[in-house]
């Protein structure tokens, strides 16, 4: 019986990109369904009633939600080209840092970008401390996964590509060459990888999208 794999995603979501990239890296054929987050489909609501969010992977009719959960599931069903490391300790570390990116780095970066001038310096400092901890994981390796991309590289793509789009909109440069030489080198390598460039949101469309959301957030904050 042929596997039926569907991915409910959204073109500008880094979480959606994680799943797409993992599927492509492992050569798994899938059907992609673009969701309009302002008008969610009844299928999405049926498959992810708890959070009503993308990405959702539906494998032979069974839904899996949350990008980190989906990536682990994919690795366990399709065992070629593993995305997670094999060693249990390395797996624990990869899981830890991926969670750190989502629960710590992303919110502090958001705070830094939305901060009023008097709070900005402290917010930036907090974000940079966290980015430094993550950068240290790259010491002596081209990728977080070692010689090739892995689970943590995929999770960290949000830092590689989304941060640069936000920088264009907001003007705040968090990841400078001076502060994060190793992270910048890693980002440079990612930009040369075809499969990533296939999945990434188109730059100009992405900048416009982020600009609209940023302006809405600023307006809401001042009301």
């Amino acid at each position, binding site marked *: 019986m042929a596997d039926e794999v569907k991915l409910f995603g959204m073109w500008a979501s880094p979480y959606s990109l994680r799943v797409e990239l993992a599927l492509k890296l492992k050569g798994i054929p899938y059907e992609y369904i673009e969701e309009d987050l302002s008008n969610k489909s009844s299928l999405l609501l049926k498959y992810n009633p708890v959070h009503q969010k993308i990405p959702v992977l539906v494998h032979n009719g069974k839904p899996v939600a949350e990008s980190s959960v989906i990536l682990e599931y994919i690795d366990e069903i399709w065992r070629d080209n593993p995305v997670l490391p094999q060693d249990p300790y390395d797996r624990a570390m990869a*899981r830890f840092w991926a969670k750190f990116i989502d629960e710590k780095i992303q919110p502090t970066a958001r705070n830094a970008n939305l901060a009023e001038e008097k709070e900005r310096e402290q917010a930036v400092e907090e974000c940079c401390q966290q980015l430094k901890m993550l950068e240290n994981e790259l010491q002596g390796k081209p990728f977080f996964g070692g010689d090739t991309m892995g689970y943590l590289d995929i999770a960290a793509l949000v830092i590689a590509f989304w941060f640069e789009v936000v920088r264009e909109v907001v003007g705040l440069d968090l990841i400078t060459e001076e502060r994060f030489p190793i992270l910048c080198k890693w980002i440079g390598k990612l930009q040369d990888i075809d499969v990533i460039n296939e999945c990434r949101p188109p730059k100009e469309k992405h900048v416009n999208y982020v600009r609209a959301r940023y302006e809405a957030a600023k307006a809401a904050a001042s009301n």
Partner: protein
Amino acid sequence: MDQMAEHGQEVKLVGAWHSPYVHRVAWVLKLKGIAYEFVEENLNKKSSLLLSCNPVYKKIPVLVHHGKPIVESLFIIEYIDETWKDNPILPTDPYEKAMARFWAPLIDEMLLEGSRKVPYAEEEQLEKQIQQVSEAMEVLEGMLKGKKFFGGEKIGFLDITFRWMTIWLGAIEEVAGVKFFNSGKYPLLEDWKNKFIGFHVVKDNLYPMEKLVRFFKKYR
């Protein structure tokens, strides 16, 4: 026994007796028959061991195996399962495993984080926390339909992750004068709680309710 000899050396669990996150790791170690040294931390005066093992969050539990630290209770349990492969704690079916990985952190957030503030909350906040806990308990009640345990016929990962609830919530009920379990609203959860208390391995680990009540009252 062979795998114990190979992997069983130098397992330390750094934690505090009152932490449900620490207890779930301790129960997993006991269920799998893994010998370990428990290092009690005073969270008001963190040891240099803890700070060096978990420099990012400075939190317990930390499992130290062959000198290498692993943090976050759910990741520790996965590590234990992957290193000592007998008597798997997580479901073996990938889809069931995905469901366990989805629900465990979510219930932690709703139930554990919601309830831990209850003894100290002001009235407005209290309403909100109680509401959050009730929502979580409704979800759990639904998950138990037609099953003996969250793991099915036998205790599984989710039973172990939620086990703390029966003691912890009981202590909070007493200190804050609220009712979660004993409200009659969650009959399946009540049943589950009672079944689970009889399970002998876990019984060894019941941390004394009275001690926990005193602990909560002290920090109120």
